[in-house]
């Protein structure tokens, strides 16, 4: 519980930095920090497997990809002025704040209605997860597999095009 109280503000701070920082690379690195803290959160909640997966996918792949594309496109710091234009911030706030309000309201409503105890949290059972992946959820796994293959081929095609243009 104490750990949660320490961790959650950190996650929010890092996320805040990720959306607010003017330099794109800083934003991407803070995103990586925030997501890896989420991975720590998963570990704390007993979902070891998911925490490690989260870490390797988000830090090892997604953040690196984002950073890599930032390096390739090398956006200048024009974001500095534009992102902080009062109108856009205002528009963002106008859209985001009601959403936050609605979400918080619904959350508080759902918590208020259900008496949730924290005495007996569920345990993570990897073997069960694995079994159900290949039984109950086999169609879903296949769908994801097909999608991932498609993504890989698509990305490879993009990369190929990229190369041909280059040389």
């Amino acid at each position, binding site marked *: 519980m104490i750990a949660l109280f320490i961790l959650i503000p950190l996650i929010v701070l890092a996320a805040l930095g990720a959306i607010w920082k003017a330099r794109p690379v800083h934003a991407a690195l803070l995103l990586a920090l925030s997501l890896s803290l989420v991975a720590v959160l998963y570990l704390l909640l007993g979902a070891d497997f998911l925490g490690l997966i989260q870490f390797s996918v988000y830090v090892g792949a997604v953040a690196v990809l984002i950073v890599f594309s930032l390096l390739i496109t090398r956006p200048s710091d024009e974001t500095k002025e534009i992102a902080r234009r009062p109108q856009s911030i205002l528009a963002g706030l106008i859209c985001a704040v009601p959403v*936050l309000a609605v979400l918080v309201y619904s959350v508080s409503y759902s918590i208020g209605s259900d008496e949730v105890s924290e005495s007996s949290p569920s345990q993570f059972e990897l073997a069960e997860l694995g079994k159900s992946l290949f039984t109950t959820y086999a169609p879903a796994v296949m769908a994801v597999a097909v999608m991932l293959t498609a993504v890989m081929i698509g990305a490879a095609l993009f990369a190929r095009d990229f190369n041909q243009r280059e040389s």
Partner: protein
Amino acid sequence: MTPLALLLTLSCVLFTLGLFAVLTRRNAILILVGVELMLNAANINFIAFWRYGQAGVEDPNMIGPMFVLFSIAIAAAEAAVGLAIILMVFRHTRSTDLNRLDSLHG
């Protein structure tokens, strides 16, 4: 405040932050950053409800982690495809600023 409430609040805040980023950022890659944050907010919800939402249930199931697993896989794919598209656009227009990509604009 129960852990569940805490986690749900975190999820709400993260989602809103992501939304804010999507709305205010103009660099396509940084919009993707916002999208990742929103996806994670949803994942946290799943984990929170799996962990604390099944109290008193006879046979707690693993549906929450399962969803998170799929979500992570799809998020990775989404990031890959998204970035590939952004890079292709960049190849053509030499910019990742979405406000400059207005060639379809009337």
